[in-house]
């Protein structure tokens, strides 16, 4: 199946098995290795990508569903001011230890702030409830998001 979509703002055409996981297409065919495989069943959020601005689990997204859509991975997002604010917040709060879950958390944060620029702590927890981190215990990540919101005021 030939699919055409935007990947990190570039028009991409690729012949894929319609049932292939978007996760594998992005990593193996298109070199987007920021997208991680954790649980492989949509629970851990390590594979989160943005599709038309919304966070989705690429490990359970079939390749055929990408046609005509805009996909953003960390490789594309990292050049933005919003990314820099999230990165600064995560650095300051110690939100990263092993780093495996981090790309997913960063994109889930972007998806949350895109819809709700001033979330409460409860709303941050809800917004990040599809991401698992086995290192930090979450408090540092929530603090990192808080700092990103304060220091990145006006970006969302």
């Amino acid at each position, binding site marked *: 199946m030939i699919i055409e979509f935007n990947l990190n703002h570039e028009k991409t055409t690729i012949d894929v098995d319609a049932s292939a996981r978007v996760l594998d297409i992005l990593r193996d065919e298109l070199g987007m290795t920021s997208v991680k*495989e954790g649980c492989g069943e949509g629970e851990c959020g390590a594979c989160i990508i943005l599709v038309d601005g919304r966070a989705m689990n690429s490990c359970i997204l*079939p390749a055929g569903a990408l046609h005509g859509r805009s996909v953003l991975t960390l490789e594309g997002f990292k050049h933005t001011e919003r990314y820099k604010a999230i990165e600064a917040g995560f650095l300051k709060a110690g939100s990263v230890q092993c780093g495996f879950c981090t790309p997913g958390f960063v994109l889930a944060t972007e998806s949350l702030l895109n819809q709700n620029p001033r979330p409460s702590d409860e709303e941050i927890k809800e917004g990040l409830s599809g*991401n698992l981190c086995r290192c930090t215990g979450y408090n540092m990540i929530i603090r990192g998001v808080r700092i990103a919101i304060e220091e990145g005021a006006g970006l969302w």
Partner: protein
Amino acid sequence: MVKGYRPGTLQEALELLAQETCTVMAGGTDLMVQRARGFSLRPKLDRPLVFIEQLKELKQIYKKDETLHIGPCVTLTDLLGHPHIPEIFKQMIGRMASPPTRNMATLGGNICNASPAGDTLPWFYAMNAKVKLQSSAAERTVPIDAFISGPKKTILGNNEILADIIIPDETFEINMYRKLGQRKGMSLTKASFLGLAMITGSTVTDIRIALGSVAPRIVRSPEIERTLKGKSINDIRSSAGEISQRYQPLITPIDDARSTAKYRKEASLNLIRHFLENMQP
């Protein structure tokens, strides 16, 4: 290599299904997990896929003639943000999966997956919802409890697509939903309870009780509900324990990885009693 079709209209999709045995793919959040084969492998899906998530005809939400119509390809996230969707149903959806999964998962997918733990199902049973099934040659409309024929089983034909979900546009004064899971986010249901009621003065004029995850199908008993209609709140409150026991034979849960049959049964009966004891006009 698995073929994929992206029809532009519902009619095109139905014509594809009339010609070839295919798998219909909406959000993929159930199918891709059920067919997963493991780390970095494509799932075990062998038939050609017909993608329907993009079909505009299946993404509408509107009211007509005191009926709410929800297109089956509406995502759970879309429902949470829509003014036509009752608060109680939003509460139920808000407890499902996580935001990224809700951005993909469709309502029609939850219905067609027909899991006894399908978290949207108790609402459709309580509301006497119907579903419209369409093929290239015909259409039929059936009540939700006739559509789901058993655990993970429906009467949907290989040539049919769930094309509309039809719900009487009724609201209730008393709404209670509880989902019991291991944690708040991203958990599958051990047992769930939905109670709806209408009160006039001190008389209960309508009452609906539906339970999920505690039997092969969603539990609802119009017979028991009928005996409660017309009674006063005080009568119902004082006999809440006895009424909840009438549900005992209907609640036939299993032991599984998530919970035990014993816990599920006791918790469900307690939730019924709690609902009946705490009804306030």
